[in-house]
């Protein structure tokens, strides 16, 4: 008996030896590496290789705290460097083959990266993060300059607004450092300019109502202060208006500082003695000066008061002169304001591009000025390109790169960044590639099932009316595909080439058939809404974007604003008999500080507006549901109808779509609705239970009123509420080895509440995990966790009766305790033990039995910190649920339930426990590299993982999003519902055929024999 159990045991162990097969990598999963939405203008950077060949990359620093490089030829990521969250990028600069970055408060950390490979060459901590001065904006007070006077590759780094260091390019050591003698002074430096004679630090000193320019000249050799001077000036709008133009002349590099003061360009020459007096450029009045990245070529752009742009050049004789004025750049209702950008070609000649959008032609235009052409008079090449403003919003930034293959011919490449987070490259008027970088900032996403392929396009429902002839014709037409079908059937039968659970489901690239699901339902459409005002429909088969729509701002379009998606609901699925629909609920924050709640009702297959208010593929218009902020939104299902229930700040109930049927339906169930809500202000959120008034109030709406408040200590802040996903529960209990049952505690109102306790205005002292009955506020379970570093970072996943939470234990509670990440697994069962059932899933919330539960709990040491945790989900809930986590090692990994079972015994398991496949408790959770779902991908900073069932019960679809997108499918109990791919179908067919043949042969023989027996037997 025991040996048999052991054998079963061993076979089970083999059976669960689960891993992604190498042949499935990249087939069942996909990964989209993203950088994030560029914060500033991207830069073309060109390096010259050993043999004179040049390579260029597009460098960008993004809102996801990533610095990355993109190949301009195809738009793929060349490399990226992920900065930690507490180490924000404050500045970067590329020079030749290296890229210097400054990150952290005040530029605490200095790094040198290789510009082509992204490899980290040097890293230097200049000051501690605590002593960093925080400026607004963050790039104030930090600057990087390269020593271009010789080949030393040394870097000059300005940090904290008052410290300059020279860093050796080879060793990465500090050569010298200079700190402003009086740090308490109001001078904050923000620019560094190098010449062979002196390093100039340019800053602003605060004076009455304006700033004064302050310049310090420092010796490049030993870091001594050469001179120090206040330049008489009065600057109002900060250091953005400071422009340092330099010119490499015959007498060495001459540098001039220019700024805008009282609509005139003032400038002063910088010499080591700082003796020069500012001069005022006479002539036109200017509104703005633009740094276009060509300061070292002595060029910048200034816009006049009428809007026209002028290129100003620092000429040989040391004066600033207007070199060019762009034609038709005067402010006009026919086109938008122009964006200016500068770039260099292979030989280092500068080019200046002006890009604007024409309202008349509905196209974007670019004018590229080559100042050195046409014998130094300047040559402008213009072209228009079909920028799709409905799809990508407005052009935010432009970078230009140009080539001059022959006289009077300029070819240019433009990199555009748009307000919706797209990065595009245009070669003249040819679109080369688009990167949708806003996908690095997905707020809500949902996987939506696709309809079945329409195999037979027969007309359903007209059989009664059509004539005999018409029917015959139709059926003949339908039957013309029959030979092909028969051939396919025979082929399928003979070769056994059925749909495989581990094959790719991506459609062929030339596939034009409408969107439909595959055999096993692995292909879904991921509807993802970003905070950059765009919603995408992504094919889960390969990650291609099928459709995308830009959110309209409604009335706020005139003042500007942003839409932050908060919730997404699938209000109609394929099983409801029509195309699936989703509702995205978002908050619109207009620039005039008004907040509204808007809902967008979208067809999930095409992205079309269901409500019909948007025209065609124009901007997607939403409906203002609440004139104010949203408290909570729910999907409510009443029979076949689904609608969204929204609560505003006054707890009034709004419905979307607000039809009379939905209102009736809600009115009927309103008296029995209970809502646990997190309310209150930041730092003192409370959890309260609410009911909905059975009748409409005088405002014409139902109102939720409080009935209880969770009895938590007053200094405990409710951080978040974790609810169970809406998915079926296959089994109501857990059958033990002796065939008794532990009934699962499935009270539908149970929520998990994560809290943090803090002293007033101090860091958190402890964190809490509560399991609370959301209908009446009873606390069913409570655990106090340490707040490591004063931060509560508890992550929890809750499904059925199983709760798993993860936290960091810093060992402060007990001196003997080790510091480690912990994962706690809990299960809730009805009653006091086995066979004690209280029927918790349909019990009234007011019954005393709802609190009669038993809790099984075990704590494990977890290998690493995580950013999100979730469980797999399957169609019927029969398959075992695994835990999926995105770790801080940029991987997505699954942890099997077997190891997290809270009933693992603390001794050797008995035979009965072995029958339950329980294994002995071990505090350390095995970190199995075979269970890393993302295998060799670096899946950067996954913020959330969503899971969705496939048609196959065994398989769950997994989509993780953060900086990167990652999709795969997992089968926690292996694909038990499809035939193994190694199954020998040919053998089976041959065996059956052989047996049939044997029957055919032997049947007459047996019949003859029987007959003879009858005749001759007796």
């Amino acid at each position: 008996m025991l040996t048999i159990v052991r054998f079963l045991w061993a076979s089970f162990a083999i059976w669960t030896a689960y891993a992604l097969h190498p042949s499935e990598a990249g087939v069942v999963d996909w990964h989209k590496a993203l950088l994030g939405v560029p914060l500033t203008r991207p830069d073309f950077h060109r390096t010259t290789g050993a043999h004179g060949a040049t390579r260029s990359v597009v460098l960008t620093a993004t809102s996801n705290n990533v610095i990355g490089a993109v190949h301009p030829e195809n738009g793929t990521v060349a490399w990226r460097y992920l900065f930690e969250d507490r180490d924000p990028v404050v500045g970067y600069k590329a020079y030749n083959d290296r890229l210097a970055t400054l990150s952290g408060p005040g530029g605490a950390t200095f790094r040198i990266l290789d510009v082509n490979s992204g490899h980290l060459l040097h890293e230097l901590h200049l000051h501690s993060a605590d002593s960093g001065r925080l400026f607004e904006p963050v790039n104030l007070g930090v600057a990087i300059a390269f020593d271009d006077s010789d080949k030393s590759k040394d870097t000059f780094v300005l940090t904290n607004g008052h410290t300059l260091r020279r860093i050796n390019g080879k060793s990465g050591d500090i050569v010298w450092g200079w700190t402003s003698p009086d740090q308490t002074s109001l001078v904050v430096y923000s620019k560094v300019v190098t010449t062979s004679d002196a390093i100039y630090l340019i800053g602003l000193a605060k004076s009455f109502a304006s700033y004064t320019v302050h310049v310090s000249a420092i010796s490049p050799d030993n870091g001594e202060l050469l001179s120090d001077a206040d330049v008489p000036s009065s600057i109002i709008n900060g250091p953005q208006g400071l422009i340092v133009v330099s010119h490499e002349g015959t007498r060495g590099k001459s540098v001039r500082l220019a700024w805008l003061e009282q609509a005139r360009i003032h400038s002063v020459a910088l010499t080591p003695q700082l003796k020069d007096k500012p001069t005022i450029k006479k002539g036109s009045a200017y509104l703005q000066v633009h740094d276009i990245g060509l300061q070292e070529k002595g060029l910048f752009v200034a816009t006049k008061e009428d809007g026209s742009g002028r290129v100003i050049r620092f000429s040989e004789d040391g004066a600033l002169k207007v070199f060019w004025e762009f034609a038709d750049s005067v402010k006009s209702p026919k086109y938008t304001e122009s964006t200016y950008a500068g770039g260099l070609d292979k030989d280092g000649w500068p080019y200046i591009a002006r890009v604007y959008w024409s309202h008349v032609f509905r196209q974007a235009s670019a004018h590229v000025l080559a100042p050195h052409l046409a014998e130094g008079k300047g040559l402008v090449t213009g072209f228009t390109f079909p920028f799709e403003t409905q799809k990508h919003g407005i052009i935010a930034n432009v970078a230009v790169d140009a080539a001059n293959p022959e006289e009077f011919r300029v070819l240019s490449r433009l990199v555009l960044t748009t307000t919706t987070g797209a990065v595009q490259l245009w070669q003249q008027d040819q679109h080369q590639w688009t990167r949708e970088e806003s996908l690095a900032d997905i707020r809500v996403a949902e996987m939506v099932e696709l309809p079945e392929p329409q195999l037979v396009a027969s007309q359903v429902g007209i059989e009664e009316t059509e004539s005999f002839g018409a029917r015959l014709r139709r059926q003949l037409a339908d039957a013309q595909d029959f030979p092909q079908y028969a051939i396919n059937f025979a082929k399928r039968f003979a070769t056994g080439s059925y749909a495989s659970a581990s094959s790719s489901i991506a459609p062929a690239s030339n596939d034009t058939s409408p969107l439909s699901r595959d055999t096993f339902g692995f292909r879904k459409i991921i509807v993802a809404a970003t905070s950059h005002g765009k919603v995408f429909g992504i094919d889960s088969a390969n990650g291609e974007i099928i459709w995308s729509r830009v959110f309209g701002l409604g009335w706020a379009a005139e003042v500007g604003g942003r839409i932050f998606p908060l919730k997404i609901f699938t209000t109609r699925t394929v099983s409801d008999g029509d195309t699936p629909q989703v509702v995205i609920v978002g908050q619109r924050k207009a620039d005039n500080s008004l907040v509204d709640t808007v809902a967008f009702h979208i067809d999930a297959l095409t992205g079309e507006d269901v409500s019909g208010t948007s025209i065609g593929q124009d901007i997607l218009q939403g409906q203002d549901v609440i004139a104010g902020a949203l408290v909570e939104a729910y999907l409510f299902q009443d029979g076949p109808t689904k609608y969204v229930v929204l609560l505003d700040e006054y707890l009034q109930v709004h419905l979307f779509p607000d039809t009379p049927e939905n209102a009736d339906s809600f009115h009927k169930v309103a008296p029995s609705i209970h809502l646990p809500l997190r309310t209150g202000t930041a730092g003192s959120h409370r959890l309260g239970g609410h009911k909905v008034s059975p009748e409409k109030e005088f405002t014409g709406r139902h109102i939720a009123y409080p009935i209880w408040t969770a009895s938590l200590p007053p200094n405990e802040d409710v951080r978040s509420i974790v609810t169970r996903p809406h998915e079926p529960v296959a089994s109501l209990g857990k059958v033990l080895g002796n065939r008794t049952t532990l009934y699962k505690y499935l009270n539908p109102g149970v929520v998990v509440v994560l809290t943090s306790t803090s002293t007033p205005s101090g860091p958190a002292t402890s964190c809490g995990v509560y399991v609370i009955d959301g209908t009446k506020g009873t606390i069913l379970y409570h655990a106090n966790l340490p707040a490591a570093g004063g931060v509560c970072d508890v992550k929890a996943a809750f499904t059925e009766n199983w709760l798993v939470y993860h936290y960091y234990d810093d060992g402060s509670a007990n001196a003997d305790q080790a510091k480690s990440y912990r994962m706690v697994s809990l299960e809730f069962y009805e009653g006091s033990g086995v066979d004690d059932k209280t029927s918790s899933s349909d019990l009234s919330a007011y019954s005393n039995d709802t609190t009669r539960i038993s809790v099984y709990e075990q704590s494990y040491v977890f290998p690493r910190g995580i950013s999100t945790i979730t469980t797999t989900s399957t169609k019927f809930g029969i398959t075992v649920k695994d835990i999926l986590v995105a770790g801080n090692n940029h991987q997505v990994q699954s942890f099997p339930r077997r190891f997290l079972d809270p009933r693992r015994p603390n001794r050797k398991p008995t035979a009965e426990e072995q029958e339950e496949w329980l294994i002995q408790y071990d505090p350390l959770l095995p970190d199995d590299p075979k269970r890393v779902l993302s295998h060799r991908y670096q899946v950067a900073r996954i913020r959330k993982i969503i899971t969705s069932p496939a048609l196959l019960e065994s398989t769950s679809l997994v989509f993780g999003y953060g900086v990167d997108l990652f999709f795969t499918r997992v089968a926690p109990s292996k694909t038990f519902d499809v035939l193994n791919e190694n199954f020998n179908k040919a053998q089976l067919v041959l065996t059956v055929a052989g047996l049939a043949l044997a029957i055919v042969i032997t049947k007459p023989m047996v019949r003859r024999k029987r007959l003879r027996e009858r005749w001759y037997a007796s």
Partner: protein
Amino acid sequence: MSTTTLEPSKWKHLPPPPGFAQTPVATKTSGKVSSSSSAASYAALKEKRAWDFAISPAKSLPMQAFMLYMSGGGVQIFSMGIVFMLLSSPFKNLAAINSAFAPFAPTPSSHDKTASQVDPKAFTTLPLQKIVYIICNLLTLALGLWKCRSMGLLPTGTGDWLAFETRGSPPEIVLL
């Protein structure tokens, strides 16, 4: 016939073969007495045979128990075959109980008017033996059931009925 009369030599003391009387006269004369005595012994024999048959299932019990022990506790074709046999044979036996005991029914005497009405296949014939036979078969059944239980095939625990449990919807609706 002629041979028997021709050779009355040294073999004449041998008993005649069964069914052959020495003389037709002798049989006729002693017919009544000997037939009544042999009928009594025959009835006794029949009853003994009926008893043997009644307890025969119990006799095979030790052997079946040994087979069960040898077949092991796993759910395999061999053990399942034995268990199936153990479970089905009592029912088969009991279904055929009347016809099985019919040969052992007491032969009705020609002069016994009441006995002539006794149907050998009636349940009331040989009641004691039949009761014992039923008990012995129940023992076999019990052995089979015990085996089933030890293999975990009897739905005795709540876990076996869990799949049939249903739950309705709760009276309160909680929006989460």
